[in-house]
């Protein structure tokens, strides 16, 4: 999905490189890799997976000796993480910490800066000065405000453009005369531009969700990466009772909202959707993941809602054929658990798709209800969830 975070390692490397500063850090994924690192007395080992509040969560280990690197990574690994950053522990000369950030919108690139950087920058919001980069930008003023040279500032703006950043934050950093050091920095990129950039690639992207993903989610990610159609799946409550098999970016949110409106938000087991006219095989694979999750849930009364708006071009007969294939595999087990399935969908070849899925649901003893667009999404959903309230 378009706006995504780069790893701390890549962010620091890109920024230091463009500023002509040396950066020493190692991106590692295993204790063995960490054990290879040499040359310093003390190291910092941290999780590099876009997790917020790492210090509080104990995901940053300080004062690690060379001999302890492998163990440090192992410890963090045990907590379910898989990407780590190792840096030499450096004591910086005491100097005031600064803040620098860039964002963009229709008006162009905006720069914010403050001489009161650090984690509490938001409390010092008044100290932040904002600029919009244009032909009229007074680079010398900006240089004075930020402590970066004019060349450095131009280089940062160029980097922002060339590598399709949408957000860059250097906070804090030290800049007094020649003494410039980037203490922390974060970058978000427009991942739609992956094709156009050289500075980063997919391996540098970090997802903000917890490390330990379910196999079903990983499976859907792979499916999405290998198809022109789009798929996503997030498990919200593994033991929830409301399962969704949705189509369409808009309708899927509407349906999830309606579940929430009905007071069943906590029972919502998953969010996800397929769109862009996937073929039968792909829909089968996607549906299989949702059904596997469903079988694993410990909830007593489980309902699957297969839904979507009136599709413009997604072929209902073809996509439903994939769902029916999955019913043939998982249907009997689902029926043993007393699952009921409800369907509400419209679009190209809906008559065929709806008739076939109705027959299949009845055959497997899973039939809850099958509705065409004559029944509104909320009506169908209310009927489906009536028994759970």
């Amino acid at each position, binding site marked *: 999905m378009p706006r995504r975070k780069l790893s701390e390692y890549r962010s620091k490397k890109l920024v230091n490189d463009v500023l002509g500063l040396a950066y020493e850090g190692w991106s590692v994924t295993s204790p063995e890799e960490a054990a290879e690192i040499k040359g310093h007395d003390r190291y910092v080992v941290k999780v590099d997976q876009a997790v917020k509040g790492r210090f509080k969560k104990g995901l940053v280990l300080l004062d690690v000796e060379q001999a302890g690197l492998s163990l440090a990574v192992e410890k963090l690994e045990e907590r379910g993480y898989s990407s780590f950053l190792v840096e030499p522990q450096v004591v910086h000369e005491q100097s005031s910490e600064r803040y620098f950030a860039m964002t963009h919108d229709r008006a162009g690139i905006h720069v914010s800066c403050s001489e009161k950087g650090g984690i509490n920058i938001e409390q010092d919001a008044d100290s932040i000065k904002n600029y919009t980069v244009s032909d009229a930008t007074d680079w010398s003023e900006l240089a004075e405000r930020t402590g970066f040279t004019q060349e450095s500032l131009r280089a940062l703006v160029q980097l922002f453009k060339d590598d399709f950043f949408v957000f860059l934050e250097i906070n804090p950093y030290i800049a007094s005369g020649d003494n410039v050091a980037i203490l922390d920095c974060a970058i978000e990129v427009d991942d*739609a531009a992956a094709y156009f950039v050289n500075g980063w690639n997919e391996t540098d992207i970090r997802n903000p969700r917890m490390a330990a993903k379910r196999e079903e989610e990983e499976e859907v990610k792979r499916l999405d990466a290998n198809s022109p159609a789009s798929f996503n799946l997030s498990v919200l409550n593994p033991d929830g009772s409301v399962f969704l098999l949705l189509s369409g970016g808009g309708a899927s949110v509407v349906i999830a909202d309606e579940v929430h409106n009905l007071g069943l938000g906590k029972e919502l087991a998953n969010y996800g959707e397929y769109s862009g006219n996937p073929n039968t095989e792909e829909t089968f694979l996607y549906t299989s993941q949702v059904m596997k999750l469903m079988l694993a849930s410990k909830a007593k009364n489980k309902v699957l809602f297969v839904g979507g708006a009136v599709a413009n071009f997604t072929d209902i007969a073809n996509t439903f054929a994939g769902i029916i294939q999955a019913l043939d595999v998982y249907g009997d087990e689902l029926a043993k658990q007393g699952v009921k399935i409800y369907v509400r969908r419209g679009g190209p070849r809906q008559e065929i798709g709806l008739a076939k899925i109705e027959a299949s649901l009845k055959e497997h003893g899973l039939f809850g209800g099958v509705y065409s667009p004559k029944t509104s999404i909320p009506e169908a959903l209310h009927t489906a969830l009536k028994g759970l309230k």
Partner: protein
Amino acid sequence: MIIDDLRTKDMKVICLGSHPGIIQSILDYDFLVKKQQPSIIAIVAGGRKQERYFWGESEVVIPVVSKLENLPEELRTRCAAVLNVQSARRVLSSTKQAIELLPNLRLAAVFAEQTPEIHSIELAKLAKERGLLAIGPSSVGLLLPGFAKLGAIGGTQHLQLSEAGILNDGDTAVVSTSGGIVNELIHTVTGAGLGVSFGLAVGGDRFPMTTPAEAMLLAESDATTKRIVFFGELGGTDEYEIAKLIKEKKLTKEIIAYIAGTVAELFETPPQFGHAKALAQTHDESASAKKQALKDAGVVVCETFADVAGVLKERVNGKREVTKATIGSRQKSLIISHVSGDVSGDVHILGKELLRTVEENSIASMTLSMLLGKPVTSPKAIEFTDYVLRLLVDHGPYVSGAVNTIVSARAGKDLVSSLASGLLTIGPRFGGAINAASGNWLEGATSGKSPREFVEAYGGIIPGIGHKKYRIDLPDPRVKALLEFAGNSNGDTYLTFARGVEKVTTSKKGNLILNVDGAIAAVLLDILESEMGYSRDELKELVEIEFFNALFVLARSVGFTAHYLDQRRHDEGLLRLSPNEIRYIGE
């Protein structure tokens, strides 16, 4: 830009990229609203020259070009809208090019998801400078009931279209960030008993080229529109823009809104929902904050999707007249032919019944007409064809093709096999030079290069140049005869160029003269262009499909057949080479 300017049945569309389902649905819509012709006049895509679609229950073809610049200027001038269904990585370059090359462009819709943000921003700027309405990316398009459907919006099956109540307009505009929901809302509006004034999917990206607020202003300035149904989502701050416009009294029409994504507030780290922008990073971007802002501004904010239909039903004032039209059953034919076919049981060739064609035409006239796929009336072209067919009929039993026919005939093979073995010999070194020469003369004469530059750049043997026996001081009498056909009414561009090349090559070596192949190519090109009005692109196409070799193949078939019959009449048995004709050089 105002919506009413686009309410015309004449808006011609070029499709950048091909998406057969969407294109067919646009043609179906055109047919259902009783347009005389399909609105799509061309498709820009690789791989083929035309695509076939249903037009009602019948079929039409739409021309396909590989590059927009290859499209004839006349079509480019007529185009008022583009539908871009190319992949996201091409969105910027192809849309930019369309804006540059289409002087009367007023509307552009971009379908692809995953277009980089700054590309959308750049295109939006460009569109504003040009005063055109640009929609998307990741948009299913714009629907102007009764007039136009640009994109998948409204559905892609003719049954969906004819049953949705969208063949005539109404007073309710539908604006949505979601493609599926725009269709759902269109159905909700017509289902409630109202009509749609226009439906617009702005797309689910963070920086749509037309923002929701701009879409509202389009509705505000549209006399047909009385109220707006709006679907928005968490993420982005578009709704605050709308609230601001209402407070400034720039938006006065009633807005009925549903903002999706309150469910996101359940999660500690909210998931990225289906659309690119659907991620709330700050409280302002949350669905509930935006709903509140709209409510405060006086928008009718629906808490559940069901309320939208309820509110709309309250706005119904009398029964709406719904235009009805349908498309019956239809079946795609396997092959399309422009040459011949049955018309009520009789064979027709090039538009006339076979016997009539036979009575009115010579073999040369019929041959040339059929090869070109249209009736030829130029007497000169027919006369030249007749001459060339005769001239190329045979060149003695020595040439490769004739030898192969003779070898096959003496091996006891039948007529068709022996003829085929001769024909299969025709290629780059034997008999194929007319087509190659045509390609060269066409390329050379239109490139602006001088014959000398052409020769220097060519390197290697130039097809159509050179002869074993004849030289500059001993001219080929056949070439002389062919050149009698020069002197065309609108000039001899290609012959002039070919003679220029000959002048350069003969200055190097006396036998590098313009030969029969080169002369036929040049004269024929000139006749086609000068006497028959063929454009350069059409000539290029004739070269690509090997039209110029067809004359050789046809004529020489007579020679090969004659050699076959001759060998069979005087059967000498199998032809076998003797050891002294082949030298073995072993190790």
